[in-house]
């Protein structure tokens, strides 16, 4: 049942991705001011949306884990953090590729870039914690706490970074996406691309999640086996 849904999602993702690729490279008109490079917008924005959504899932899974103490929530949170990290890294990379020809620089401490970068660092901290520790309920709780704290920190980051950059205006104030999408085809392409990347994320998340579920079950069995072994030895 589960694998049927997963496979269905996988194939739909493939179809959606191919459609959005066609639309981005063939169908959508080229933006007048920026030219061909603006097309990276249809990848950049969906990636960013997924990166932020994944972070939300980490936090919500953390709350449920601390509340219900069911391993399933930790597995979901961990899977979301890992996949989210990939998308967040891609946001920063596509952003840099876009920034270079348009702004003439790879990086600027603009409010959105800074916020995304901080988000990336927070993901990094979470994953480092998981990498440095074993899969115990204790570490799962630590992960949940970090996920919640980090998610609630993000609004404060956005607030402070925005204030930081209004007082010291960046050299470049106009941003490509804010020119508005003049052609309705641009809106349609963006929507298809958003759906495709959301499906891709959901699919990757499901794959990783079921993998972690198996691992947790295996860990549980190992613990049980160790207990039985110890009991048998005592007997």
């Amino acid at each position, binding site marked *: 049942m589960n694998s049927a849904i997963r496979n269905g999602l996988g194939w739909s993702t493939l179809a959606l991705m191919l459609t959005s690729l066609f639309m981005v490279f063939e169908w959508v008109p080229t933006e007048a001011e920026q030219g061909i490079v603006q097309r990276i917008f249809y990848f950049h924005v969906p990636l960013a949306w997924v990166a932020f959504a994944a972070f939300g899932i980490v936090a919500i899974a953390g709350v449920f884990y*601390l509340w219900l103490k069911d391993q399933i929530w930790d597995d979901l949170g961990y899977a979301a953090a890992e996949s989210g990290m990939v998308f967040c890294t891609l946001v920063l990379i596509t952003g840099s590729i876009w920034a270079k020809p348009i702004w003439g620089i790879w990086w600027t401490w603009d409010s959105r870039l800074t916020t995304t970068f*901080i988000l990336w*660092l*927070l993901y*990094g*901290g979470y994953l*480092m*914690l998981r990498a*440095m*520790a074993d899969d115990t*309920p*204790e*570490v799962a*709780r*630590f992960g*949940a*706490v*970090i996920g*919640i*704290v*980090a998610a*609630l*920190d993000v609004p*404060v*980051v956005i*607030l*402070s*970074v925005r*204030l*930081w950059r209004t*007082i010291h205006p960046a050299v470049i104030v106009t941003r490509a996406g804010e020119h508005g999408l003049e052609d309705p085809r641009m809106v349609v392409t963006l929507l298809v691309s958003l759906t495709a990347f959301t499906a891709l994320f959901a699919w990757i998340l499901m794959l990783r999640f079921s993998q972690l579920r198996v691992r947790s079950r295996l860990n549980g069995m190992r613990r049980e086996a160790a207990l039985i072994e110890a009991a048998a030895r005592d007997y």
Partner: protein
Amino acid sequence: MGAFAAILRKDLRLEIRSGQSTLALFALSLLIMVVLVFALDPQPSDRAHDAAGALWVALVFAGMLGATRSILAENENGCMRALTLGPIDAAALYGAKLTGGFIFMAIAELAAVILIVLFFNLEIGAALIRLAPPLILGTLGFAALATLLAAISGRTRAGDLLLPVLAVPLFVPALIAGVKASEAALLGLPLAAEGQWLGILIGFDVLFVTLGALLFEHVIRED
């Protein structure tokens, strides 16, 4: 309240009798300032900007040691387990550790403030008094954050590496607000310029003290 006072008193007495952290934190503050002076080579024109930056670098790095002092000490000899076995509310324990961390950090910062006045040739006057609110609020925020995170990092492998990786990105909003507020204070800008940053610092403190008190229980519990 009784538990809170008892734990805080114990931590402070431990520090007064040994005197180790205070001395180490003073030395650390001094060394950070020395490094920054040579690294930045402060020019008279950017004095306020450089001094504010140096102060907050010292706050973050000294805080990493100072704020976590009282909580990491409990990891030795299973002291933390003993504390969790007692009839102590986790929030009270968190409050006591947070207060202890705040005091140790404040000591290090006092040293840092004296040193920036000397090294950056600042005027002694109203500007220094206006530095107090951002410093106190920033210290509280960092101590709140570091106390919660140190309870985590202290119980993982290579935890001393993990603490900065987790603490610094989370502290970014308070760091931005703190540096800007301190700069405004040192430049003698109107109070409103400092006020909006203090607002962010207050919000950060309320958020992290509340989160710490609520989540500490899940971090120290053993099963």
